[in-house]
């Protein structure tokens, strides 16, 4: 007896762009175009939102679905939720499905929390008896006991989202399809959502989880589907898929080369040739995570004989906070020596377990004689430092702090209290 709960075979979905958001979607135009026999030559653009998607999912699996925006993840979920039909191909589903594509679908602002629980529950597919039975649990989960009889339009956005999720969380489908609901709500809410989903999989139900939160996907899902441009890129064990995703999609340039000196940043004294970043034990294409030691290397031409050059590199975060500015003060070979004309290579090493995860920008500044600016080039390179997946952490949010060093703690028992 097959354990497959979802079997997708060559699913394709075509959208006609012209018809969808046309400003002339009116009856009057339909009638007039009927009379204009040759007036219908407006070309209708089409786009394949999904192309030849095939995969199988077994009972009790938690499957992540990751990909860029526009990869087709939500469209896939919509089709599996039966909201829209595929253009070709088919999907077989064994078991009752429940979809959470949006939090609070059908909530009416004029109705109270109590009334909306019933309404939303019915919309999601629960019977009135079922809702009544779970009513207290739902209210407790949402933590809105005091406001249950107030119209929902008076709720704060946090309360709204908690209530909406509480109702959906008490759906008991055999297959749960969740689309990025974690994007809404604060950290506490996200934690609750994920715990509930873990709960669901513990009970042997199947979960399909679309998310951009890779940590959550890593912790919840055993296998992950990676989609791009409407196609399935890969489907397999989560760690490998996530690494592939990061490598293919999240990487920004790790190397820039200017072969033509005239086009390169610089002046008639100094010209940049290249800049690259590379983890210590790896190639420039490898992703850097917070534990990796990595090198930043710059190659540059010195065009003025006997220049006392001081290159410096500045690292800034996405919020424009300066992480550090570093110069080769302690460099033994060339620091303090006059530079002959020629191509130079300077490199420095950033230790692992220093930087927090996130996106960083590199800027380069050249100074001569330790004081006079030659030129500065900002934001030459952008790179990401990724969360480490080697450490299994239960924390799903982003840790604060520009740096995230692993510091040595000591703990000792000073005085034991004996009763």
């Amino acid at each position, binding site marked *: *007896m*097959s354990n497959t709960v979802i079997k997708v075979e060559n699913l394709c979905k075509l*959208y006609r762009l012209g*018809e*969808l958001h046309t400003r002339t*979607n*009116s*009856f*009057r135009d*339909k009638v007039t175009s009927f009379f204009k026999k040759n007036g219908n030559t407006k070309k209708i653009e089409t786009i394949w939102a999904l192309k030849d998607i095939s995969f199988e999912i077994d009972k009790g699996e938690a499957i992540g679905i990751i990909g860029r925006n526009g990869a087709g993840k939500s469209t896939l979920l*919509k*089709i*599996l*939720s*039966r*909201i*829209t*039909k*595929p*253009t*070709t*191909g*088919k*999907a*077989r*589903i*064994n*078991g*009752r*499905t429940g*979809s959470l*594509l*949006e939090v609070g*679908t*059908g909530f*009416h602002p*004029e*109705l109270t929390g109590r*009334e909306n629980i*019933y*309404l939303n529950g*019915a*919309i*999601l*597919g629960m*019977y*009135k008896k079922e809702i009544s039975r779970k009513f207290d649990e739902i209210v407790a989960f949402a933590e809105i006991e005091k406001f249950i009889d107030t*119209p929902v339009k008076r709720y704060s956005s946090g309360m709204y989202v908690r209530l909406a999720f509480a109702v959906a969380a008490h759906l008991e489908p055999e297959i749960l399809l969740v689309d990025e609901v974690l994007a809404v709500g604060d950290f506490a809410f996200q934690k609750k959502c994920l715990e509930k989903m873990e709960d669901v999989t513990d009970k042997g139900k199947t979960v399909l989880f679309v998310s951009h939160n890779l940590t959550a996907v890593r912790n919840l899902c055993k296998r992950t589907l990676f989609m791009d441009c409407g196609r399935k890129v890969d489907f397999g064990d989560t760690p490998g898929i996530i690494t592939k995703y990061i490598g293919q999609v999240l990487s920004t340039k790790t190397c820039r080369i200017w072969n033509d000196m005239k086009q390169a940043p610089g002046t008639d004294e100094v010209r940049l040739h290249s800049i690259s970043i590379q983890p210590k034990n790896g190639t420039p294409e490898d992703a850097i995570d917070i534990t990796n030691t990595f090198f930043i290397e710059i190659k540059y031409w010195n065009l003025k004989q006997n220049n006392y050059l001081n290159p410096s590199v500045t690292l800034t975060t996405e919020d424009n906070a300066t992480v550090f500015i570093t110069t080769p003060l302690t460099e033994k070979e060339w620091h303090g020596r006059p530079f002959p004309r020629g191509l130079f290579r300077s490199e420095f090493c950033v230790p692992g377990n220093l930087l927090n995860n996130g996106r960083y920008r590199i800027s380069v500044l050249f100074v001569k004689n330790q004081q006079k600016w030659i030129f500065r080039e900002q934001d030459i390179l952008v790179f990401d430092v990724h969360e480490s997946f080697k450490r299994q952490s239960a924390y799903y949010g982003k840790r604060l702090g520009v740096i995230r060093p692993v510091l040595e703690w000591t703990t000792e028992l000073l005085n034991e209290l004996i009763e």
Partner: protein
Amino acid sequence: MSNQIVIEPEKGWIRINFKELYEYRELIGFLAWRDIMAQYKQTVFGVAWAIVRPVFSVLVYTLVFGKVAKLSSSGLPYPLFTLCGVVAWSFFSASLSQSTVSLLNNTNLLTKVYFPRLIIPIASLGRGAVDFIISFILLIFLMGIYGFAPIKTIIFFPIFLLLGLCITLGIGLFFSALSTKYHDLKHAIPFLNQMWFWVTPVAYGLENIPEKLTYIFYLNPMTWIIQGFRWSLLGVGEINLQKILITGLFSISVLLGGLFYFRRMESEFADII
């Protein structure tokens, strides 16, 4: 293997899944209840509006058509005559407006949750149904005042009620599906309602219409529903078996047509709305 659902492209005319509709029957109630609650919450008169509207219409029609224009009302007291027409007509015209926009108003449900889409236009009749019941009670009351006791033709009343429902639902389904594609249709509905009103003997008897023009009225299916109402409740008008049969056939075809057109368009709702 228990309930396996196969998701695949749909083409052409699709059968109606009554079993599924039955499973989701509670949702029809909830959606209708939601519309009714939303309409009357934070209002002064609340449900009393359901009485104010027909009463006001009857007063105006009696005054304008009965007293000023001096039209005849098939031998019935004018208020009673018009109220009977108004009760039936209001349900039809209100339901037509509400069902036409029902899918548009529930775009968020259509694009985010699955349930049989037929639920939405069916539920949209809920408001009209509640108003109908209230004004029908008013009608009974008025009948009592004028001394009209129930007569044996009353057994036909449920038939006309049902046929009226069929036509209303059928046209509503058709328009609701059409308006997902052509959003401006909802603006045409008030106009349509107005014009339709004039060719239906709601506020004046058929006998007022010149011979040559009666065919316009005869072609209008609502004429027969309203005449049927008056005949079964108040005993006026000429209804024979032939007319009932034709009206019945017509109503059922309209319903079936609406249902199948809706089902055919259904798979595209989420994409084109």
